[in-house]
């Protein structure tokens, strides 16, 4: 498949770009932060995001989706990254939607996907338990009871936790931390007895939270997929999520780079534009080349996801690792090349830098994916 967007995908990109650049920009994020918005996003813009169809990318057409698949999600994510658009889109419309779409029963899909696509229900996946992404290391546990399960444990770094209405919680039904088998996905409703949701305020001024489960009782209907066998399908959803968040990192890198290039042309020192200095030119040219590489690895992985290719895991790790590396460089170079201005809150590059590190950490940072790549390649 050609590593370019087809006509429809290009139209999608243009419409996402236009919509987000108007409605959900860095300035909007700044305003949400400064007003200490309780929800962390604008409900009207979120409703419009759904009306525009962006929430329907990864859902099968039978359940109200538009069938754009992961390439579509990646295209939107890149634009979200460029604008630092604050919304539960990634958590609910991509990650939770894909997990349900690929793991749930028909009845569950029937019940759950429509409201996700409409944006009226916000669902989020709770997988991590500490500072480091480690799905095999999950130790939250679900104990069998008469007619159901009781869940115990902690989940951290849960996107949009405090605005979500439902949680996809990965817990252990057997085995112990480190085992791939023994994991099961449960759907918990917000407000269920014993489920405590705490908001965490993170560097990116977006929505994060922790879940504490103190014996949350659920019936077996709450299980998504099969008992003990969640790891493989979960990891596949995570792989798609990793590539989509990589696309967001690409958007961040591109926007940050564009701001930097503009500054290199504008700012004068020693009587000339600072972009005249070869020391900066070469670094800019290097960074540009690096961003192009990240872009290619991401399209390749997005297409692999839609083609259900067995190479997805490897390509996802390549894409996420590369995107992490490039975003780190792009944001660091931006601050450095802006000089004193780059250190100020008034300048947008700080916002890009903070969001980038969060997106880098989400579902595995550079090191996680470099290590995973080596494992997958067998060296």
């Amino acid at each position, binding site marked *: 498949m050609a590593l370019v967007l087809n006509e429809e995908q290009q139209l999608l990109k243009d419409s996402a770009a236009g919509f987000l650049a108007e409605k959900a920009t860095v300035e909007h994020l700044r305003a949400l932060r400064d007003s200490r918005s309780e929800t962390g996003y604008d409900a009207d813009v979120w409703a419009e995001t759904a009306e525009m169809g962006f929430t329907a990318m990864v859902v099968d057409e039978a359940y109200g989706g538009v069938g754009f698949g992961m390439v579509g999600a990646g295209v939107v994510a890149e634009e979200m990254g460029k604008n630092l658009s604050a919304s539960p889109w990634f958590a609910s419309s991509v990650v939770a939607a894909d997990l349900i779409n690929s793991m749930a029963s028909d009845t569950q899909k029937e019940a759950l996907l429509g409201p996700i696509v409409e944006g009226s229900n916000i669902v989020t996946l709770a997988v991590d338990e500490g500072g480091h992404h480690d799905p095999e290391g999950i130790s939250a546990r679900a104990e069998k009871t008469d007619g159901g399960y009781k869940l115990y444990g902690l989940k951290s770094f849960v996107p949009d936790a405090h605005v979500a209405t439902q949680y996809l919680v990965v817990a252990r039904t057997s085995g112990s931390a480190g085992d791939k088998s023994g994991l099961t996905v449960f759907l918990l409703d917000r407000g269920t007895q014993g489920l405590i949701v705490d908001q965490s305020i993170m560097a990116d001024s977006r929505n994060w939270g922790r879940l504490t489960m103190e014996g949350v009782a659920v019936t077996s209907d709450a299980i998504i997929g099969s008992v003990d066998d969640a790891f493989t399908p979960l990891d596949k959803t995570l792989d798609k999520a990793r590539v989509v968040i990589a696309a967001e990192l690409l958007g961040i890198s591109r926007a940050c780079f564009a701001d930097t290039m503009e500054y290199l042309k504008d700012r004068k020192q020693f009587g000339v534009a600072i972009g005249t200095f070869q020391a900066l030119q070469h670094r800019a040219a290097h960074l540009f080349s690096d961003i192009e590489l990240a872009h290619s690895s991401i399209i390749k992985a997005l297409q692999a996801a839609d083609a259900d290719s067995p190479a997805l895991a490897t390509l996802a790790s390549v894409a996420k690792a590369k995107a992490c590396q490039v975003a*780190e460089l792009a944001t660091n170079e931006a601050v450095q090349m802006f000089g004193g201005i780059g250190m100020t*809150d008034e300048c947008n590059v700080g916002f890009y*830098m903070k969001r980038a590190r969060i997106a880098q950490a989400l579902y595995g940072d550079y090191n996680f994916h470099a290590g995973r790549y080596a494992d997958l390649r067998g060296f």
Partner: protein
Amino acid sequence: MSDHETFRQETRAWLEGNCPQSMRSPILGEDDACWGGRGFVFKSDDQKLWLERMASRGWTTPTWPTAYGGGGLNKTEAKILKEEMRKIKARNPLNSFGISMLGPMLLKYASEEMKQQYLPDIVQGKIRWCQGYSEPGAGSDLASLQTKAEDKGDHYLVNGQKVWTSYADKADWIFCLVRTDFDAAKHLGISFLLFDMASEGVSTKPIKLISGNSPFCETFMDDVKVPKGQLVGEAGQGWTYAKYLLTHEREMISEMGSGAAKSVGEIAMELSPTSEGRLRDPILRGQIAAHEIDYASFVATVERVRDEAKAGGGVGAASSTLKYYGTELNKDRSELMLKVGGSDALEWEGQYSGEGKVARTWLRTKANSIEGGTSEVQLNIISKRILGLPSS
């Protein structure tokens, strides 16, 4: 017993008897340091006592002459003092731009009268200084500064704007670069003035940093009258003094990352997954090892460069190498700290993360390779002055 051995033993005993217990722990950040000055509120009685005791011996400025309140120590003694302080984890009693920047320049270039007037207050931490160098149009190209000082007979009339002035809102006095001659070549029209921040016509406006804190300001001078006696050295020679001061500033900034209680590797063993006594992430392990190898070599370089420097002088052009390497390493350390802590390190508010300590520190380090002259400027200086490469 050699003189130095005697000095070491006496110093050790004095420190043991005089350094309060609570001052024997690393400073936790800019807020936790003692900055002195007219309006400084001490964090604790111990902090005040420690400053007073050290200042009474001149050990806030160990190598400055006793005539100005300094410790009068020679280089070897000063090194011993530092080593002995480090052994008991004694804090630096006073963080001060007067000590790390202005003082060394005054010692070299100011009149005797001026030294008598300003240095003792720096030693005692009575006056807090800020640095008025950068302007909106004059950053890396500092010599293009436009703040104007007109000669009005007995005083200069100063008008203009400075920017990024660290702690201008907390400082008592400013050392300020001004242009006294607009006709001279740009490096030759600059003069070096000292004035009280409470002078009429001086105002400051804090600027918020990406870390959420506001340690620096815009500083405005609107018809500020500065008595002639507050001109350092000669008019038109300010650039020479300014550059010399910068070598001291750079040496200071190069060490901003030093003195942490624990190495990155040690912290990683606490915060990152381990197995069988090693970090589980082999890549992180390699990255930290590479960092610590560079850091150990850097620390040895700082020591070597200082040992090679002439007594009383600074490290000269080598300050650019130290500044470049030290600040890049400090940024690298902070990025590693994010990797070590993972998402936990990115929390911004809340007790869990000490109100975002790691994340805010990480963001603050980004300035290290900008303040005091950017990394690019340091590399230019190394290329030009140390390597003697032709300029374009």
